[in-house]
């Protein structure tokens, strides 16, 4: 490098360079004095070119702050000037200086040690962040390689297992084609299903009766379908031919677009469509109205056929072996009990004793005598998700696959943007997100723990239900924060709180047992001319045994009021109030269906009071009336 090259560069004399090298205090006073220009200072010092070149070279290489360069320049200048004054030559001084590059490096390092603590803290922060980013990038890269190079292993075809039974049913015994024909033949309901009151006397009743009359063919087809032994619905992810027409009739949503995944020839359990359940619900609505019409026109045969058909529909719903099917079956059983209870009360002589006995036997036989909900489908669905959307290390563990993000859209038809990662960058972000997500084994363990607890609680009668469903609590904990939601994704969105499922089955069981008791009382009354003083008198001729009150485990409560029987449960307060409904005056005098609301309050489960702590909310003080019907 020549000495000329190290002279102050031309641009240094520009205004910008001068401003750049002027101390801030000078600038604030309006002066432009480049006091910080170390090279300018060295050049102006008048040293021999060798030393000027050496000094400028060292100062440039230090890459220090301007003020620091200035300090170093002053010191080196003074040093060389001292040396020259002591008689040394420029070449001697340059030779004894040492390696300029090494000098610049050491000076830089030493000067930086003298910098303020704040600067050091910022540097440490910068370095820490840099190290963290680097670490995360490495983790990301490793995770991405692991995720994108491994494949899921779809070892079990749950669809085939599930469909083995319906596919074995001969076509002539399959009820589904007839149900489908009945649904497709049905016109548009005149009243919203959600607000429909399926009892005579309501404002919509004339329109409903007219609708049933206009849809006599559907009514007949529903009866025919119910008379067939098996529903034989074959689970699938797509609807073909006639089934596809149900989409336009509102019985099912369109099939979800399948997320990209290997081995799509095996249908995913989570994507199965279930149009039979809304069809069955519509059929029971139709037949319930028809049964009331039959009673009004004193046609016991038609009413009897309708009731038996609805009960068969409940069994057809349970045949699907999915949780929601069991819940529909419980609802259909309860609807039949409501219908039967009202007919017994309003038309006590409608049915012959033989018909009452046949109805009672059929009602008791729904679900082979048990309305409890089953969780097999939930287990199959989740295991199927694991095998599709997780890699398989051959030992029960694996990593989540990016297609897992589409689970939400598959399950509820929502946009993929509803995934916790957003839509567009989902795949890009997935390796990073997957470091927080539970692995296959851990997620399955969490699922098993959760569903085992919920199933254990769902199998208990209300009188043995613990104050808290720990399965539900686990689900709530999974949804507590975005981090836990992500950790347990997709369990945190797929796992419903099951606690209520078991209770719905319990309510249906209590309602069924009370209806069977009411039927037995009617049969007793017809034989003896009055009602028994105790339910024990009904056994074993009309009842195998007195059913339990689901809230206290003791026999269902029975009283004669004005010579008429009253069946009730102690209700949620677990206290016998003599068959009195809870007070619902707080609802206001104009509240509709006050008695029905009061009865529902007494029915709906709440944890038993804990003597050790004051109740958060007082339990409804009253009983759950089971028969006669509460209007």
């Amino acid at each position, binding site marked *: 490098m020549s000495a000329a090259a190290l002279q102050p560069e031309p641009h240094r004399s520009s205004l910008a360079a001068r401003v750049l090298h002027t101390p801030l205090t000078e600038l604030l006073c309006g002066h432009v004095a480049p006091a910080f220009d170390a090279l300018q200072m060295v050049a102006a010092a008048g040293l021999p070119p060798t030393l000027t070149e050496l000094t400028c070279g060292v100062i440039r290489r230090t890459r220090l702050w301007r003020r620091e360069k200035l*300090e170093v320049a002053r010191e080196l200048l*003074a*040093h060389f*000037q*001292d040396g020259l004054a002591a008689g040394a030559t420029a070449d001697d001084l340059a030779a004894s200086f*040492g*390696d300029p590059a*090494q000098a610049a490096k050491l000076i830089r390092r*030493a000067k930086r040690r003298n910098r303020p603590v704040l600067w050091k803290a910022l540097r440490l922060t910068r370095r820490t962040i840099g190290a963290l980013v680097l670490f995360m990038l490495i983790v990301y890269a490793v995770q991405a390689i692991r995720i994108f190079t491994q494949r899921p292993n779809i070892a079990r075809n749950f669809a085939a297992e599930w469909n083995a039974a319906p596919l074995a049913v001969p076509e002539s015994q399959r009820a589904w084609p007839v149900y489908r024909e009945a649904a497709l033949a049905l016109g548009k309901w005149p009243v919203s299903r959600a607000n429909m009151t399926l009892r005579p006397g309501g404002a919509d009743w004339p329109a409903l009766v007219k609708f049933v009359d206009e849809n006599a063919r559907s009514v007949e087809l529903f009866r025919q379908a119910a008379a067939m032994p098996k529903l034989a619905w074959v689970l699938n992810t797509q609807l073909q031919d006639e089934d596809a027409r149900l989409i336009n009739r509102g019985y099912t949503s369109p099939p979800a677009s399948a997320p990209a995944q290997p081995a799509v020839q095996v249908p995913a359990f989570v994507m199965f469509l279930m149009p039979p359940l809304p069809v069955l619900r519509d059929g029971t609505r139709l037949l319930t109205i028809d049964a009331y019409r039959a009673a009004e026109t004193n046609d016991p045969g038609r009413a009897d056929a309708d009731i038996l058909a609805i009960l068969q529909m409940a069994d057809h719903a349970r045949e699907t072996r999915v949780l929601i099917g069991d819940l529909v079956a419980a609802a259909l059983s309860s609807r039949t009990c409501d219908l039967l209870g009202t007919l017994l009360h309003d038309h006590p002589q409608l049915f012959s004793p033989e018909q009452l006995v046949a109805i009672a036997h059929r009602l008791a036989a729904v679900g082979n005598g048990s309305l409890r909900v089953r969780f097999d489908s939930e287990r199959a669905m989740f295991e199927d998700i694991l095998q599709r959307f997780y890699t398989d290390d051959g030992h029960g563990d694996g990593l989540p696959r990016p297609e897992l993000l589409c689970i939400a859209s598959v399950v509820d038809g929502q946009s993929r943007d509803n995934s916790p990662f957003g839509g567009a960058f989902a795949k890009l972000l997935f390796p990073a997100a997957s470091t927080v997500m539970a692995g296959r084994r851990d997620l399955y363990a969490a699922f098993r723990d959760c569903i085992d607890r919920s199933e254990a609680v769902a199998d208990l009668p209300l009188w043995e239900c613990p104050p808290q469903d720990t399965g539900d609590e686990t689900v709530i904990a999974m949804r507590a924060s975005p981090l836990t939601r992500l950790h347990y994704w997709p369990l945190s969105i797929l796992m419903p709180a099951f606690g209520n499922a078991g209770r719905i089955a319990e309510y249906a069981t209590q309602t069924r047992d009370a209806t069977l008791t009411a039927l037995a009382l009617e049969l007793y009354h017809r034989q003896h001319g009055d009602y028994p003083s105790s339910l024990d008198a009904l056994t074993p001729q009309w009842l195998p045994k007195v059913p339990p009150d689901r809230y206290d485990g003791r026999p269902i409560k029975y009283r004669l009021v004005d010579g008429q029987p009253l069946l009730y449960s102690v209700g949620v307060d677990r206290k016998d109030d003599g068959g009195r409904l809870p007070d619902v005056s707080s609802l206001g005098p104009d509240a509709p269906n006050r008695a029905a609301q009061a009865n529902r309050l007494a029915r709906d489960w709440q944890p038993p009071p804990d003597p050790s702590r004051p109740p958060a909310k007082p339990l409804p003080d009253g009983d759950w009336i089971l028969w006669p019907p509460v209007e």
Partner: protein
Amino acid sequence: MRVERELMRGAGPVAVLKLLERREMYGYELIEALSKRSDGVLAMGQSTLYPMLYNLEAKGFIESTERTAPSGRERKYYRLTRSGRTQLAEQTGQWLAIVRAMQSLGILPGPTAGWEAAS
């Protein structure tokens, strides 16, 4: 005789501290004094001395003042701080221990009285 770099790295700072023990000195003066008083053994160039001075300053063992010398030149004078004195005492103790160890191994001839007196 040229001292190994690693040895110099240990000996250099304590030598500088020792020189500054009695009075303040500027850079060129230090280089000259080191070379002269150690018969050239501890001679070091600017490229070694100034980074060493900045390091000692960063550690708080020395402090500097810029002053105009009688010759009219701006110079930076270095002097020992209280912490520097403590450090010098510790370093001297350690060097003495090394010398004694070397003597006991027969690497250095004894006695060490001269060194002790010097410290």
